[in-house]
């Protein structure tokens, strides 16, 4: 029997190489590493928990079932985010979803569903007042992100939530570097305007 390695400290490329050898624990490790970032990106694009899970699943299946096609000169995460972004954009193109609030999906039919589809914003609060302010800002920014154009949304999420460089975002989204810079600039500007009321 093959001894199961501890993969948590291995770089993505090595885990992918093990997955290409048909090691199931390597697939699970890739899912463990990226289920939250991918789900978060897609959720903030489509604003519906169930849909986001379905799309995240679709993105992972597309990537993991074609893991043999992965080329190590690219980052695995860039490939995964590219697929995740594509499935989200395709979904949004097919169904023009209304923009919703962080307080729950508009598709929710009951109070329980509203609660299930809403999410908390994690905060690092030093005091009750700061916690309240931070929470308010977090909620407001989630709402503001929801009003952005999908292309701006994916760029700003990759830049500031996933911490990707402009070059990586351009490669991930198949966009020219200048376009990525413009999108991020406009997204920041729109977010600043959307959050203006908090400063007053």
């Amino acid at each position, binding site marked *: 029997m093959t001894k199961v390695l501890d993969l948590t400290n291995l770089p993505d490329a090595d885990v992918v190489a093990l997955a290409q050898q048909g090691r199931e624990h390597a697939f699970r490790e890739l899912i463990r590493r990226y289920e939250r970032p991918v789900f978060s990106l897609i959720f903030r694009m489509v604003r519906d928990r169930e849909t986001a899970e379905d799309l995240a699943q679709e993105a992972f299946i597309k990537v993991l079932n074609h893991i043999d096609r992965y080329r190590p000169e690219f980052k695995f995460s860039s490939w995964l985010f590219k697929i995740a972004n594509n499935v989200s954009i395709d979904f949004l193109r097919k169904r023009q979803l209304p923009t919703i609030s962080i307080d729950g999906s508009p598709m929710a039919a009951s109070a329980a569903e509203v609660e299930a589809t809403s*999410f*908390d914003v994690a905060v690092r609060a030093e005091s009750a007042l700061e916690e309240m302010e931070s929470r308010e800002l977090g909620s407001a920014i989630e709402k503001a992100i929801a009003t952005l154009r999908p292309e701006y949304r994916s760029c700003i999420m990759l830049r500031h*939530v996933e911490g990707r460089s402009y070059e990586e975002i351009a490669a991930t989204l198949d966009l020219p570097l200048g376009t990525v810079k413009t999108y*991020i600039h406009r997204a920041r500007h729109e977010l600043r305007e959307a959050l203006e009321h908090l400063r007053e």
Partner: protein
Amino acid sequence: MKRHLLPNEIDLLLDAEVGFGVTPLKAHVRTCDECRTSLEEARTVVTALEHLPHLAPSPLFANRLMSQVQVFVPWHVAALDSARRYVPRSQPVRYLVGALAASMALVMTSLSLWLVTRADMLVFFADLVASRTREFLVGAAGNVLAGTFGEPALRVLRDSGLPGITLALAVVLTATVTVALGMRALVGVASRRRS
């Protein structure tokens, strides 16, 4: 710098870019309240974005996903895994098996090399075996012929050489085929009469 910062210049400062062009921008921000306020507002947005949490899918997500992933094991990996099953677990036994395999390989290699150096001897023995086999087969066939057709027939066959042997073989073959066909026809007639 006498004018206020442009939006793309604020972006440069937000991205903490360094370089020749950024120094005057930083200097301007230190002296201009309006630009400092703009930069701080932009920083607030960026900080809020950077503090957005990663959201978790349902706990069953990974298992549900894995049930739809086709884990494909390439043939060379499967072959290696199968081979590994036969490798002993304990280290002393592994060393022992390794030593045995190495000595076997050494013996086989030495034997092969020795045989290669003695190629002339191999050819001689092969020739000897072939001629003995031929003699044995010819003798056996002669005995069968002498027993069946008698010694004179064998003598005639020997004297006539290859054409005689070929003719005799053709006659025997024709006779065999004729007999076989005749037997088959008889069996067919008998079965038709019975039915």
